[in-house]
């Protein structure tokens, strides 16, 4: 499987990763090699085989919907790069009118 520079750009955008020109060329080359290796999976007959997402029996785990102590606000915000008035602060999303 060959991965082009354009595909690298597309996937990087989906993954919210800025990549340099050098990285684009490197990833195109490395991902092509890795995906070529992955192509061996095509040899396997998986007709009618259920996919495994997890090895545990998939049962819902329930708990009481009860109020329990949680992290105090200042601790939950302590690692935030930017905060104000008990909120996470982010760059402006909407333009001024």
């Amino acid at each position, binding site marked *: 499987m060959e991965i082009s520079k354009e595909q690298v750009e597309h996937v990087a955008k989906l993954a919210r990763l800025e990549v340099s020109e050098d990285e684009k060329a490197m990833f195109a080359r490395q991902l092509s090699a890795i995906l070529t290796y992955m192509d061996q999976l095509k040899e396997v007959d998986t007709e009618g085989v259920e996919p*495994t997402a997890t090895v545990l029996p998939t049962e819902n785990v329930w708990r009481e919907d009860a109020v329990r102590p949680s992290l105090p606000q200042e601790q939950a915000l302590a*690692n935030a790069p930017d905060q104000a008035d008990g909120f996470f602060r982010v760059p402006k999303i909407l333009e001024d009118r």
Partner: protein
Amino acid sequence: MNVRKLTLCELKDKFMKGEVSAVEIVKAYFQRVLLVESKVKAYITTAKKDALVKEADELDFTLSKWRKTMPLMAMPIAVKDNICTKGVKTTCGSRMLENFVPPYDATVVARMKEHGYYLIGKTNMDEFAMGSSTETSAFGPTRNPCNLAAIPGGSSGGSAAAVAAELCVAALGSDTGGSIRQPAACCGVVGLKPTYGRVSRYGLVAFASSLDQIGPITKDVRDAAMMMQVIAGHDPLDSTSADVPVPDYMKALKENLRGMKVGVPLEFFAEGLDPEVELAVRTAIIQMQALKAEIKEISLPMTTYAIAAYYLIATAEASSNLARYDGVKYGHRAKEKGLLEMYMKTRQEGFGAEVKRRIMLGTYALSAGYYDAYYGKAQAVRTLIKRDFDEALKEVDVIVTPTMPTPAFKLGEKIQDPLQMYLSDIYTISVNLAGLPAISLPCGLSSGKLPIGLQIIGRPFEEEKVLRAAYAYEQATEWHLKRPGL
């Protein structure tokens, strides 16, 4: 008495009998850190000496009045830096979390605290546990204490090196595709990956949630059993932790293998296996037979596809898990004006090359048009791999294989070739896909004086049998007594 030469069980016994004080233990380990840590670089963060000596001094005083001891009391244990420690930096070996200080303890850490342990340091690791050599850490590589030019394995390379170099009495690691067992093999120590769901993942920074497990890295098998006794068990804070009773692991240890059926899979002794490793493992199998085990050849044909399936599933899960690093809630944030630009720049600056590569691979495998061909296909192959193990483990109690196809390679040897690096996980990866417990323990030395690891795989929640097989072999040999001459 040389404190740092003792195993966890031995040190605990001497401490309980009052033959060694908490202060003596703590000082001995800090002395060792001072002496060899600059060569090995096992730690990202080490405990503050003054504070820990003071705590130990107070403990000694309390115990002089009131003798009550707990299993891990005053034991200096290292914790991999992707396991949250309240108030102590947890970096995941990444610039992204360079200054992250968790406001809570992982469940495993909370349990060790209840049992009186001392955190001696947070160990180095491949960035976000993505790597097999500890070279992708943003804070520089760890070196193999057995040969400083060699890798310690990865991703829990810091934990394995710390145990081998006697920089801690035991350690915790995490294992997504071999990250406990492979470094344990490289450094000549014992590493156990428990059954998926046996140990709580609460507070473990997520890499691939359906594969990750926390487990012990120790000097010998008894120590691994003792650590498991503390960390195993159901945790309501982790919905994937299994509500299965925890047996007495120490009681499971026996000195023979009478009545045990041991499977040897053909596929694990094929092309690519180093002849010295093959000889050591085949010799170990003969020794197990001498210990009254019944040896049986088995076949796990689908495991040939394990690496391909694993690197699609693990990277797909990682691309989703690592979406949380957006520069908003915690971690690094780039200085950019717009929100989207901030996200993209934050992730460019915060992640290293291997993490980016895996996020890209995983995103690709999940993207429109490729999902069925890659991610869906890999999940179906995972089912077939699991079936192979299920069938084989109806015939035998445990399966024995090499842990790694070669002894530890040289630093820098594979870091430029990701696919070659991935192939070094060939014997450990299928175990995570099937969710089984497996241990690695030393079974030989290469001509280059590097340790060789033996892997023993068991049925789900049968860590007892895995430990028993490992213990009987270990006690009949002397590989576990060999320590690097640092």
